[in-house]
């Protein structure tokens, strides 16, 4: 593992296999053309961060990947499947292989933490018995260090705890790819760092590949193998954090100069 100065190990065992391939992705809302031909590849075991300012279309991008939004044009190929050609049931099966951590965590607020974590398992692991399900819930909570919250309601948790529970729920189905929507927004720097460390620990444990959406350069520095700068709906620049840090491109410089 690569061990940079900040002490957090980024995943370096990156496979040749492309698990997400996006070509010419376009999405407009009326006259607002958010994505204008976005291209990217995500390799097995890799963390790619899409960096862009607010409103640049980062969330639209990952919602197009998971099928929450329908792109106007382009190719979205995930784990060898054309996501845009899948029927409802096939799409639901694919979604089980893809985890999605929402910016707002999106915990079901009428359910306890246990019920939140059990929800996807009850639906997709119907043969799993209660004891196995309970064991998996407790294991997922242990992974994020929150076993004691199992019977609490989401409203009883702090922002950082909700983010951890959201992460546990995302990973409980052992997805092959995880999409993180602004994973550290609204958190203090210490909790942000803890969440990034946790994401990387869990990634190492379960061998997932990730796309991270953020405008937070600290996340890029700590977690990303590759950083893509999303500007005016296209992949304006791509490279490692260190490569982009030394870039002279004015758009890229604007991010780094604001540090």
């Amino acid at each position, binding site marked *: 593992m690569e061990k940079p100065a900040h002490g957090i190990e980024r995943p370096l065992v990156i496979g040749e296999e492309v698990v997400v391939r996006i070509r010419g992705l376009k999405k407009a809302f009326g006259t607002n053309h958010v994505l204008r031909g976005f291209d990217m590849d995500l390799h097995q075991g890799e963390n790619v961060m899409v960096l862009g300012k607010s409103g640049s279309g980062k969330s639209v991008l990952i919602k197009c990947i998971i099928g929450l939004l329908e792109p106007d044009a382009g190719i979205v190929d995930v784990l060898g499947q054309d996501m845009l050609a899948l029927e*409802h049931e096939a799409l*639901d099966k694919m979604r089980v292989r893809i985890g*999605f951590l*929402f910016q*707002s965590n999106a*915990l079901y*607020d009428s359910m306890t933490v246990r019920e939140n974590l059990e*929800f*996807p398992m009850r*639906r997709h692991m119907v043969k799993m018995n209660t004891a196995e399900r309970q064991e998996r819930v407790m294991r997922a909570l242990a992974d994020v260090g929150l076993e004691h919250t199992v019977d609490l309601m989401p409203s009883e948790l702090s922002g950082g705890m909700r983010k951890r529970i959201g992460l546990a729920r995302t990973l409980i189905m052992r997805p092959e790819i995880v999409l993180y929507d602004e994973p550290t927004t609204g958190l203090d720097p210490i909790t942000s760092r803890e969440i990034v460390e946790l994401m990387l620990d869990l990634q190492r444990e379960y061998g997932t590949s990730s796309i991270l959406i953020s405008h937070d350069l600290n996340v890029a520095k700590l977690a990303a193998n590759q950083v893509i700068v999303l500007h005016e709906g296209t992949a304006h620049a791509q490279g490692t954090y260190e490569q982009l840090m030394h870039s002279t491109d004015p758009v890229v410089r604007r991010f780094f100069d604001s540090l």
Partner: protein
Amino acid sequence: MDVCFGPIWPGYLRPMARSQTVRAFVEEVGDIASFTGRFFREVFRPRYEWAELLRQSFINGYRSLPLVAVTAFIMGLVLTVQSRPTLERFGAESMLPLMVAISVVREIGPVITALICAGKIGSSIGAELGSMKVTEQIDAMEVSGTNPFKYLVVTRVVSTTLMLPVLVVFADAIAIYASYIGVNIKGSVSWSLFHQQVFDSLVFADFLPAFIKSFFFGFAIGIVGCYKGFNTKNGTEGVGQASHSSVVVASLVIFVIDLIAVQITDILGYN
């Protein structure tokens, strides 16, 4: 030329604003129709969410009993007490149980219960789904490979459709019992005589059309609440709007259904 719609004149006085309102209304009706069409496509397709349907029936049916009971009791009592002087004037006091029973069973019971449920259940569904929408919980359900329309909408609409007739029968019974108390405030009628007067006069044709229309009332409450909640926009403000417009639109639809139902029963000779 740009037309400025300033705050001085209300929008309904301006032709363009008026046409936009009409267009928005037509679009909304079309959207609700499309939403209803999707409900019928999804309702018969597996997978069936029995556990959630049972939970929703418990929430929408059982938990509405106290409110429906209180309302029906007051309705039956007030109707009896207020009808008495008019009937006394014509010497038809003995017709009081019959009149109240027919009024309650045919019209007042179903409509008042439906309006009460539009307020309680419709607003609750609109607010709950609206809140889930703006906090991305519906999206979270979808990305976890669960069809949120089936899990959230189909279960709620089916539960309101099945529970409202039950609540209407319950409300009718409570209102008739309250009428017995009302009759005895100024008179003295035994329960067996009251019971005989009520059930000798009621025929199946009084009950059946009202019972059938209450399924439609329940369906309207569920589908409007779910539509409003599922299409919530503009954050927490939108949740409030979804909640209150669920009640307003469902109440309006209940009256429209009632109007259509009375025409149909009239044509069929049940009036």
